């Protein structure tokens, strides 16, 4: 998609404005005029930058995410942060964790890394696997389609959260992030697979595919060069909508105690701990909650806007 965007932009720059615009150009123009999309994009960029710059940011405030600060909590009261709003102040910008005094800002920043990494990686695996299976099922049809479709139905019919909980509880002590990525994508690829299969079915009998076949193109060429580019729009939309869903799932798994291991920070774990303290230190519960909310909202807005923008029947053509 990004290539067609650039082509569109290049075409738009080189040619006089009155000429017909490419679909990519149209989508770009629509997105640029959509405040919701811009808002979503801004927040996504902000959080991504924050995650990338996490070591820099923590050097700036001077607190590593795992370091206890006993001076910031009241030992006699079971570790309640000293000061108002969970100890928010010049020393700890977003306050400290009750019980141990770890810096909330540092943990949020490093938590963004974990949350975004897992969400993006599992979405990537989901989309790649789903697209491949969907393409093959839709294009070849027949027995291949039957087998693959039934497998997809089977996986989709699992109660995914419960299976994820079970699998993560008994899984060996391997790399936890990798494990989360694999298990989360294991249950979501059929959703992409079904969409891609349906699109493939409708595209494969179109004239340009027949034309390519008449010209002597073989299976892989038709799949990758003729059909796949026409699936870019739905896949892109699915991807942007799947990322927030995966952020939510990762948070839920961490919240339920099967996510990343302590002391690695994660938003879901922070919300889990914060829940115990919400009456005494509401900020500790709210800060990771708001971050999670904003990220999910931003990606969802972006995904919705992208879907509208790529809709060939949409306005502004």
């Amino acid at each position: 998609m990004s290539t067609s965007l650039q082509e569109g932009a290049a075409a738009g720059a080189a040619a006089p404005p009155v000429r017909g615009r490419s679909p990519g150009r149209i989508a770009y123009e629509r997105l640029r005029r959509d405040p919701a999309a811009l808002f979503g994009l801004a927040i996504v960029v902000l959080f991504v930058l924050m995650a990338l710059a996490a070591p820099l940011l923590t050097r700036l405030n001077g607190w590593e995410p795992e370091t206890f600060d006993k001076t910031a909590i009241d030992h006699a009261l079971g570790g309640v942060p000293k000061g108002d709003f969970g100890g928010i102040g010049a020393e700890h910008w977003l306050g400290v964790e009750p019980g141990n005094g770890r810096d909330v800002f540092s943990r949020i920043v490093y938590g963004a890394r974990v949350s975004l990494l897992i969400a993006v990686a599992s979405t990537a695996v989901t989309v790649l696997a789903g697209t491949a299976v969907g393409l093959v099922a839709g294009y070849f049809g027949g027995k291949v389609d039957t087998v693959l479709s039934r497998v997809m139905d089977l996986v989709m019919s699992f109660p995914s959260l419960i299976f994820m909980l079970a699998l993560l509880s008994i899984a060996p002590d391997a790399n936890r992030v990798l494990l989360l990525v694999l298990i989360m994508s294991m249950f979501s690829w059929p959703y992409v697979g079904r969409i891609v299969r349906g699109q493939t079915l409708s595209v494969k009998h179109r004239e340009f595919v027949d034309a390519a076949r008449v010209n002597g193109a073989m299976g892989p060429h038709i799949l990758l060069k003729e059909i796949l580019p026409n699936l870019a729009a739905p896949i892109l939309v699915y991807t942007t909508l799947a990322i927030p869903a995966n952020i939510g799932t990762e948070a839920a798994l961490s919240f339920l105690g099967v996510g990343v291991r302590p002391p690695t920070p994660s938003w879901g774990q922070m919300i889990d701990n914060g829940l115990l303290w919400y009456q005494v230190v509401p900020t500790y519960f709210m800060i990771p909650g708001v971050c999670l909310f904003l990220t999910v909202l931003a990606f969802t807005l972006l995904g919705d806007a992208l879907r509208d923008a790529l809709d060939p029947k949409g306005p502004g053509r």
Partner: protein
Amino acid sequence: MSLKTTVGTCLLAAALLSVSTACGSGKAPASQGSGEASQPSTGAAAKGGTLTILSNQDFAHLDPTRNWTMPEMDFGLRYLYRSLVTYKAEPGAASLEVVPDLATTTGEMSDGGKTWTFTLKDGLKYEDGSPIVAADVKYNVERSFAPELPGGPNYARLVLDGAEKYRGPYKDGSLKSIETPDDRTIVFRLKRPVAEFPYYTTLPTFAPVPRAKDTKAQYDSRVFSSGPYKIDTYDRGKELVLSRNEHWDPATDPARKALPDKVVVKQGLRQSVIVDRLIADQGDDRTAVTYADVNGESFSKILTNPKVKARFHNEIRGCTDTLAMNNTMAPFDKPKFRLALQYAIDKESYQTTQGGPAAGEIATAFLPPSLSGGVAQDTLKIPATGDVEKAKALIAESGVTTPVKIKMYASTGDKVAATAIQESLKRVGVETEINTFDPSVFYDTIGDTAKFDGMALYGWCQDYPSGSSFIPMMFDGRTITDKGNSGNMSLFKDQETMDRIDAIYAMTDLKAADRAWVDLDAAIMQKAPMIPLVWARKPLLTGSKVGGAFGHLIWSGQFDYATLGIRK
């Protein structure tokens, strides 16, 4: 669209599940100022009124033969049935003293401690006015052998003569080693001398159950009362209502005051709701007490408010939180390394995660102070935050090269506590990988000696006030079992320790034995099979009109129900 729905359900399911895990976790933090027990000024309670007990759970068992959990034992023994001997209903060290209950004395020893005779008092009656006879006590002890009624204390099974193959009164009839020559005399014949036998007879196993009223498994829901109250209604998990047993004679009972006319236990409430209601102290809640521990997160609401703090109790539990290590595997097979960890751990930050000084005292020995003459033993003199230099030096001596990686097991509720240990071990180059398990499978996991390959947050509580309910359970290498291992979680097998345990068992002078347990404790600290962390406290709250409230050392710091009453 379906995506968003998925997220929504995930979070909802997450929220629901967390509630249930929160309820499931066993350990809860407690609290108070400078490490001392809170001693609120509860005025004298008068006779009459209704006492409400707010609980988040149903009783595990009320059948005296099956009742072996705290604080159910407290509730059953103080309200519904009397045992041969019981503990004084007084705060502090006095609560560790035994006084006669159904019996006229705390037992007459003969045959070098192998025969114990008890004589019942005159005028003891059940709730229907029928007399309590010695045969009923014998019958209930026999019931404790029945496989149909599991869960109860096993002390009778361990010491009674010829009881190894006995399967209870339903299958095997009468047990020969308990004799009842007349209605008021009961004689126990033991297979070895047991100087501590009077302690055993405080257990609910030694309460009377008349054969005619025995409904076997159903007896759990409708106990036939020999105590000051009888069961009016019991809707399990919802409500239990007790009213006075008019046939109970206070003249025969030195311990129980039986002040309220009625006792209502409301069950199945959420603990945070109970605590908030007791803090608010409105209406009927003024005559209510909490049954389960005050949740640690509520401490700051209680301790910062003098009016509420005055109603807050946190007696010591008689339990020790420890860090257990598998002594049979590297690097824990090196005693120097284990000793180094004693110095490395910042017990203060562990204590904070458990709720601060109000939740527990920093433990400097395995035996809680109640078992070492009321004074905390501290032979190693390690600062509360640890001694990093000394620890590093000891690790160097032990020959273990740092950084070394070890696994740590904790139940999900102890995640934050586990990170405190992790952080303090990082200071000496020990890297810890935390594995959390649901409380329901945690003990099975670490109790499987083949699977337990690291450290675990563990704890032990006393069954009766003696080092013999602590040290041998935790450190006798002969008690280790391959699966379902408990107590000696460290798999510590040390010949010298076992010899000393046997020597103390043979003592008949209880005072000397107590001293010997304390000395042995100090010796074990040097070998460091486990690391004591905190002596936990029991945090409880009462309404403003409740009097006579204090945490009883025997009932793991729970209120002594014998003295609770309503103030005028």
